[in-house]
């Protein structure tokens, strides 16, 4: 009994989120569609409690090391890192929903409910070594995202986005499940730790043994699972849904898809690859195969960043441009995974943290700007810089960070990614990434050009926006500047993540 309650304590953040989601749903029903802002505040409070619990957990994990709840949920610093950022980004997205001028202020309690549901999915997805629970978390995240993408029922584009998303998502989930079932068939376990290294008497066969016997089924299984992840993080060639869905979905939802959902996908991808090929306990014979997987990921990274950046060049809509830019950034993050080293994983995690900051800011700007003009094309930004200087200069900061120029966190993230990749012998990939950041400068600074370098177009209606929106964007800017100057704590956190993955592997080996 006590053991159960203890294990319940380990998943307290998830439980709090679940209770919050039910509370939000019930309250919305009782309010019968009156002012939804209260529900938004309730969500913020709940997220704050979750964040506090996660911080407690972070400290606890430092003392006790990795914990496992119910044999399924792995509580380690790797997962908690991503959970903290999920909660943070979710709080910002909630604020965006509340401040979005194009969103109704009544009867949208389900919006918050679905957002919380998606975070619960992300939570389980990033903190499990069990492929079944991983799949369940991914599906929960996906289902909530499908509904969110189609949240504006009256809008054809929103409906189209939801349909495309669900069709692509269903297909890729099927592909991934097929890969998982093959892995289960090969190894007799769903636990990634046991797959990496199955001790005597565990009843499972380690993947390395099967790989030595016949490499092709193992290769097929791994590639199929990777394809599922590639869809979730929109890596070429599984990126086709991204621009349409991002464009059609309500902008706060797009923010969540581009930030929270993508980071959760990367977390699961890193854990999968790390557990099978990287950690201490893994059998030696499959490590060489892991290098080949790394090379595959490197090629995908190169194609993804190049295609994403080249497609973004020609976009007229800011929203669509940010969608392509997020594809390109997926390519950058994949560099870290491709290097197949602990430093590479830490770099990928750090870059994702940076990516949270700069993309939340950029999308926050998009929401502000849509609220002012009702449009999302770059040409309507003309003169924005002179009429809304604070917001516009904040956007310039985000653009600089997205391009990867100092003194922003984007530069720092890119630097350690390059560092890890060159150390892993992927200098060619670094050159491609470097050229890509030059390409990206061109389209990012089209926005700056439109805001500052061109004269304002007189007929664009300009409405005075709430102070709240400005403050919100400014808060993110401050975070960004702070990270640019005081990067050490975050870097330390990112380094802890892969380290805790290794701790897990040694545990699994002795279990």
């Amino acid at each position, binding site marked *: 009994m006590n053991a159960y309650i203890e294990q319940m304590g380990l998943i307290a953040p998830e439980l709090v989120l679940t209770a919050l989601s039910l509370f939000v749903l019930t309250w919305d029903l009782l309010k019968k569609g009156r002012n939804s802002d209260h529900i938004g505040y309730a969500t913020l409070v709940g997220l704050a409690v979750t964040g506090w619990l996660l911080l407690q957990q972070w400290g606890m994990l430092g003392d006790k090391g990795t914990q496992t709840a119910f044999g399924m949920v792995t509580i380690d610093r790797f997962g908690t890192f991503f959970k903290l950022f999920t909660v943070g980004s979710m709080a910002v997205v909630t604020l965006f929903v509340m401040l979005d001028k194009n969103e109704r202020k009544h009867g949208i309690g389900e919006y918050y409910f679905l957002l919380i549901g998606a975070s619960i999915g992300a939570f389980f997805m990033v903190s499990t070594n069990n492929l079944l629970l991983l799949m369940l978390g991914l599906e929960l995240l996906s289902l909530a995202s499908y509904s969110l993408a189609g949240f504006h029922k009256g809008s054809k584009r929103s409906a189209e986005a939801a349909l495309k998303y669900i069709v692509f998502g269903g297909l890729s989930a099927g592909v991934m499940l097929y890969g998982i079932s093959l892995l289960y068939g090969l190894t007799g376990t769903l636990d990634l730790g046991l797959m990496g290294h199955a001790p005597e008497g565990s009843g499972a066969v380690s993947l390395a043994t099967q790989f030595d016997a016949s490499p092709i089924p193992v290769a097929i299984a791994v590639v199929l699972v990777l394809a599922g992840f590639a869809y979730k993080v929109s890596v070429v060639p599984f990126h086709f849904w991204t621009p349409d869905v991002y464009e059609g979905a309500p902008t706060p939802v797009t923010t969540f898809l581009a930030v929270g959902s993508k980071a959760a996908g990367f977390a699961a991808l890193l854990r999968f690859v790390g557990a099978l090929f990287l950690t201490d306990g893994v059998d030696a014979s499959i490590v060489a195969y892991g290098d080949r997987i790394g090379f595959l990921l490197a090629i995908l990274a190169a194609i993804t960043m190049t295609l994403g950046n080249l497609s973004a060049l020609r976009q007229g809509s800011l929203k669509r441009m940010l969608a392509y830019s997020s594809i390109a950034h997926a390519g950058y993050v994949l560099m870290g995974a491709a290097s197949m080293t602990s430093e590479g994983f830490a770099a990928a995690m750090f870059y994702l943290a940076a990516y949270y900051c700069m993309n939340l800011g950029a999308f926050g700007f998009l929401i502000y700007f849509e609220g002012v003009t009702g449009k999302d094309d770059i040409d309507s930004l003309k003169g924005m810089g002179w009429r809304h200087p604070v917001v516009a200069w904040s956007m310039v900061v985000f653009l600089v960070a997205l391009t990867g120029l100092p003194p922003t966190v984007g530069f720092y993230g890119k630097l350690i990614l390059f560092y890890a990749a*060159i150390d892993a012998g992927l200098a060619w990939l*670094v050159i491609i990434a470097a050229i890509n950041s030059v390409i990206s400068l061109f389209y990012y600074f089209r926005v700056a050009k439109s805001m500052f370098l061109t004269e304002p177009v007189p007929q664009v209606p300009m409405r005075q926006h709430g102070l709240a929106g400005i403050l919100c964007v400014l808060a993110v800017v401050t975070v960004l500047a702070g990270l640019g100057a005081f990067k050490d704590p975050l870097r330390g956190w990112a*380094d802890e993540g892969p380290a805790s993955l290794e701790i897990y592997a040694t545990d699994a080996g002795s279990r």
Partner: protein
Amino acid sequence: MDHILSWITFLPLIGMIAILFVPKANTSLIKTIALAATGLPLVLATWLYFGLFDKMSADLQMVDRFTWIAGLNAEYYVGIDGLSIALVWLTALLLFIGVPASFGINKAQKSYYALLLLLEVGIFGVFVAQDYFLFYVFWEVMLLPMYFLIGIWGGPRREYAAIKFFLYTLAGSVLMLVALVALRLDMGALIDSGTAEVVSALSGTEDLGRNAYFSIPAMTALGGAGLLTGSTLPFGGDFLGMQFTTWVFWFLFIGFAIKVPVFPFHTWLPDAHVQAPTPISVILAGILLKLGGYGMIRACFPIVPQGFDDYSYALGVLGVISIVYGAYVALGQTDFKRMVAYSSVSHMGYVLLGMAALTEWGMSGAALQMFNHGTSAAVLFLVVGVIYDRAHHRDLNGFGGLAQVMPRYWALTTLGFFAALGLPGLAGFVSEAMTLVGAYQSPRPGFKLLVIISVLGIVITAAFLLWAMQRVFLGNLNPKYKDIKDINAREVLCQAPLLFLCIFLGILPHYLLDWMRPSVALLIQNLTVN
């Protein structure tokens, strides 16, 4: 005074923040703050130059150093030596002149002066940084204000020119970044290994026992000892079939060469110059181009001396092409400002030629040429600005006989032109002659031929400058401009200190050379591969 370099670097930043809190309409207060925030560094830099700096020493002086980002082993590490002190002073001077030269600008003045001050922070930072990470951060910090200064306050094609400038420079700096990451990895492995060779190479520097993987002096020491060869990297540091010293050298060199600009990376320069407003052109030609040359002798050649040794003749050839080609293209221009821009390409070619020769005269001449071009090019751009403000065009063929109505302006322009074409007695002559003599002395084969070819550049330079003078000032007065006003006091005051320097350094060049001599000697010693 402790931390004087940090004060010089960050005083403009304080000024910028102060400006952000001033209401937009209060332009006189904004201008006052801008003047103070550029004037104080000039005072400090002058004091530094004549008072605090020990010109007999080749060491880094006025060092400020503490750990900045422990995770990367990056430090806040600033210091100056004979190579940078003159350029720091020049920066302070030109930015201080840039403020009153901008008083004619009426558009969005608050943003303008704020960006100008931010630009100054970046430039100072590059000249004083001794940590490569810090150096790179400042290097990129310059780009953004420059983009907006050209893009918002520039001429009709400003958008194109601004993004072209940004893209070219960024393309160079990402190559630099790749090389920098590789260097940092190799440095980390070398210092961690702690072998006797590494310790002996670092002994005598401040870096012994510090894990400063980004420290430029440490890189110089290890590079000079022939240890920084990428042997700890995957594939032994080879990349695309090139040795570590080769590709790192070229990546760094291209990054700086774009800034100089060296042929064939020069095509951004005429556009940026023509579109930029006058004060920004002055800063661009006067200082930003020097950053490229300074970067080469600080953070490229001494770090990979092997690469420099292998390719110094190629650098000399590039320098000569820049000299002759830049001058030849300038001859064909009808736009006054474009002509001056191409003349900058030509003049900066001497810098490269002098450095490539690796003789004391050549290196000192190159350093001197950077300073002298900073003053003479600044004068030329101010001259163009004066006539453009009055006539609103810059077509060389559209004037004529202006000497009759603008005698004072003519006198100043003539002096500037003579300084630029290297008339003996003026500053340009000293540095160009030193470079050429230095290159001629070079023991390396083939440099004599390069010198002979580059003399052609001097002739062409004289031709286009004198021809331009003839078209604008001599001959019959164009009746359109018979009521044109002569140069006013503010404009004279902007040009006067620069012209004074042109004359002064033409007669007494040792006021620069004495400060440089120990550092140049050390640099040559570092660059000589045994």
